[in-house]
């Protein structure tokens, strides 16, 4: 590995502002050929912005960029692509309704002039697939592919454009453990050929596993640079957050009490009218966190939607506090003393264009506490909102602030505050820390454990195994809509859970 050579990428003095927010301040960054360099930092630390500048997607306000020794002025992604820089964003840049092949050739020159030359593109694609072991049907429509497969399409798309500097933004966020190790193998084979990879992540274990070198960003500035072999996850965590993190979540022994949620023979269809949940039986008790592990897309979304009343099951009974729940009716779920934390905080959880306060009372705006004869009791609502903002330490300009001005972690706190305000006996938390940084995640975890101490039963649906292991008293694994297995949280082995997640019954 020619690490002493001239760097393939050298950025210096990069500064980028968005209105009043400085996303990058005087950042310098080097990338050498044949290395995997991790860019580590919390959400909002400026990792993605920095790489978007290298990709020509954003223009920087100050600073210089050299690619392969040449000073460049990138005004659009095509300038970067033509110099061999490719970027795979967290939200894939693919057209769902088009085929894999169409997605790969769009914007590239065709040998037949203005007419598409799909035949020779297909040959080139097949050659790439064989070389890197990335098997995908070129004629499949992208929406039919799993996220792991879509990521392979993205990598092929970059390779098809002869990219030798590949930037990957949080590539494992959506992958199953097995898919992650496939991806890592692909990345290793890419750098063996002398290409370079920038790996943006906030997951410490992965960074330790895949990278040669780590650059830590915090609040838009580079705070540290380490060789992976000379650092530890612990040190990186503290560098990233800028303070000491708790070693682990403290949890006291509590004996599970009465069942708060009882699901019997539940069958649910997904949007394509296929079975998403099949004959599911599940019980959650007081004082208990039941962790439901599983790769996303195995029925978790549909299960939570049924519990929240947003989807009607084809069959089954759900009892909450031993009373049967009226199904397919969100109002009934709210009245059943269920704290609802949906997985998609922006799409379903919150109304981004309303104020924080309005989001707080969304579920209970019609209750007598907040209205009389259809008129809102403003003062009571204000007091309620101020209390929640304080109690949950929500960073917002005020209760009147528009919700979309909040960061991801604070949005999650708004949902959490709303769900927990009524001291629910059952909490259904679906992917409660997805996309959150370490600090925000730690807070949410602590709150959930406090709720358990209070006596609530919690169904924690998550595809993050670390989270499942950190919090759960009991772990079940959902695979293709069925429970593959169950294990006590204290003694479960990662290997066993991982096997169940991949559908292996051992």
């Amino acid at each position: 590995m020619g690490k002493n050579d001239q760097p393939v990428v050298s950025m210096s003095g990069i500064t980028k502002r968005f209105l009043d927010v400085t996303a990058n301040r005087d950042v310098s960054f080097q990338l050498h050929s044949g290395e995997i360099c991790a860019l580590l930092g919390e959400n909002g630390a400026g990792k993605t912005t920095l790489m978007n500048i290298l990709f020509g997607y954003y223009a920087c306000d100050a600073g210089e960029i050299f690619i392969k020794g040449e000073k460049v002025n990138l005004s659009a992604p095509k300038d970067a692509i033509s110099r061999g820089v490719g970027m795979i964003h967290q939200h894939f840049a693919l057209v769902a309704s088009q085929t894999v092949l169409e997605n790969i050739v769009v914007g590239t020159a065709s040998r037949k002039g203005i007419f598409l030359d799909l035949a020779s593109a297909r040959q080139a694609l097949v050659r790439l697939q064989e070389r890197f072991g990335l098997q995908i049907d070129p004629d499949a429509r992208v929406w039919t592919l799993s996220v792991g497969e879509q990521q392979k399409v993205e990598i092929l798309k970059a390779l098809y454009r002869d990219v030798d500097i590949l930037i990957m933004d949080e590539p494992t966020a959506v992958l199953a453990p097995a898919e992650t190790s496939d991806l890592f193998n692909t990345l290793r084979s890419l750098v063996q050929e002398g290409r370079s990879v920038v790996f943006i992540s906030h997951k410490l274990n992965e960074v330790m596993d895949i990278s040669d070198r780590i650059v830590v960003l915090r609040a838009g500035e580079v705070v540290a640079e380490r060789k992976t072999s000379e650092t530890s996850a612990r040190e990186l965590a503290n560098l990233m957050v800028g303070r000491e993190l708790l070693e682990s979540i403290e949890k006291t022994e509590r004996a599970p009490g009465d069942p708060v949620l009882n699901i019997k023979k539940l069958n649910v269809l997904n949007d394509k009218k296929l079975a998403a949940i099949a004959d599911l039986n599940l019980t959650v008790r007081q004082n208990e966190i039941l962790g439901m592990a599983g790769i996303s897309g195995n029925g978790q979304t549909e299960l939570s939607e049924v519990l929240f009343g947003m989807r009607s099951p084809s069959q089954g009974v759900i009892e909450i506090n031993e009373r049967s729940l009226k199904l397919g009716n969100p109002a009934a779920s709210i009245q059943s003393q269920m704290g609802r934390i949906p997985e998609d905080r922006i799409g379903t959880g919150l109304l981004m264009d309303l104020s924080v306060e309005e989001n707080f009372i969304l579920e209970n705006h019609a209750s007598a506490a907040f209205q009389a004869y259809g008129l809102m009791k403003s003062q009571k609502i204000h007091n309620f909102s101020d209390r929640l903002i304080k109690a949950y330490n929500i960073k917002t300009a005020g209760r009147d602030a528009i919700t979309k001005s909040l960061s991801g972690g604070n949005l999650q706190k708004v949902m959490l505050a709303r769900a927990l305000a009524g001291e629910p006996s059952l909490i259904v938390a679906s992917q409660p820390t997805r996309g959150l940084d370490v600090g925000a995640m730690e807070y949410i975890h602590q709150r959930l454990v406090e709720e358990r101490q209070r006596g609530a039963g919690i169904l924690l649906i998550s595809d993050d195994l670390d989270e499942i292991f950190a919090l759960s008293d009991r772990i079940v694994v959902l695979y293709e809509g069925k429970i593959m297995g169950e294990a006590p949280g204290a003694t479960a082995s990662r290997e066993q859970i991982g096997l169940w997640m991949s559908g292996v019954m051992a």
Partner: protein
Amino acid sequence: MIAEFLDLAFISGLMGATMRMATPIIFAALGEILTERAGVLNLGIEGIMLMGAMTGFVFTYSSGSIWFGVFAAACVGMLLGFLMALLSVNLGLSQHVSGLGITLFATGLAMFIYRLHFGSPTVPPIIQPFKQVALPVLSKIPVIGPGLFTQYTLTYIAWLLVPALSILLYKTTIGLKIRTVGENPVVADTVGVNVALTRTLCLVAGGALMGIGGAFLTLAHQNMFLIDVIGGRGWVAIAMVIFGNWNPLKATIGALIFGFLDGLQLRLQSIGVVLSFHLFLMIPYLLTIIALIGVSRRAAVPAGLLKPYRREEKGG
């Protein structure tokens, strides 16, 4: 009366009328497909068609050349398409508001220019309209020949444009770029496609087709300009785009169904079925709505439709 339905001349005439009545809808729908495939809903369509109809008429009247009129209508359509691009693409305004604004503006402007040119004559001025051209051989086919293949030149052009647009959209690199811009402008941008330019060009070219579609009504279907000459055909064209799932061929089928019903109601009136003519006028529109209810549930709307695109919006 049944006998009259089965009459060969009636059937042949109905087929001919179907083609004629479908022509402006085909032009407009093809233009709208082009713009919507690039991600812009152009609700200026009704106004652009009216401006096309007026401009085509005025230029033909003044110059005596009907093809010059068609050319002028296309140019005006392009100008208004460009205006739509300035508003909705460059300034990133709401596509609904920009489009409706253009329709309102163009409606007023068309009447204004017409009045400026002709004043308020008691008898509306007329032009020598297009003549129908019988295609050799084809028009001699029994039963269907005389109806289908004795048409205006613009109708034949509309027919040629359907496969032409299909090939453009599905078989060329340009078409793939257009579709990508319409589905996901971010993707298009990251592979080096100029989103704003693509959308602008599609709006301009689409505007030309809409303008010609409007001109057909004053230069072929009728020989004079009246303020209500478009009669909602722009909206029907938008409905046909949805009906046809943004596919040129399927939208044309929709336009033909509309043309058939429009032709049928004219003929039912002329053979003296006794009912208020308003009810007949309603038939094609009513059936359009019914067809849409059936089809639009599984419509594959271009995912980027209605979304203005700006690169440097954080999180965008």
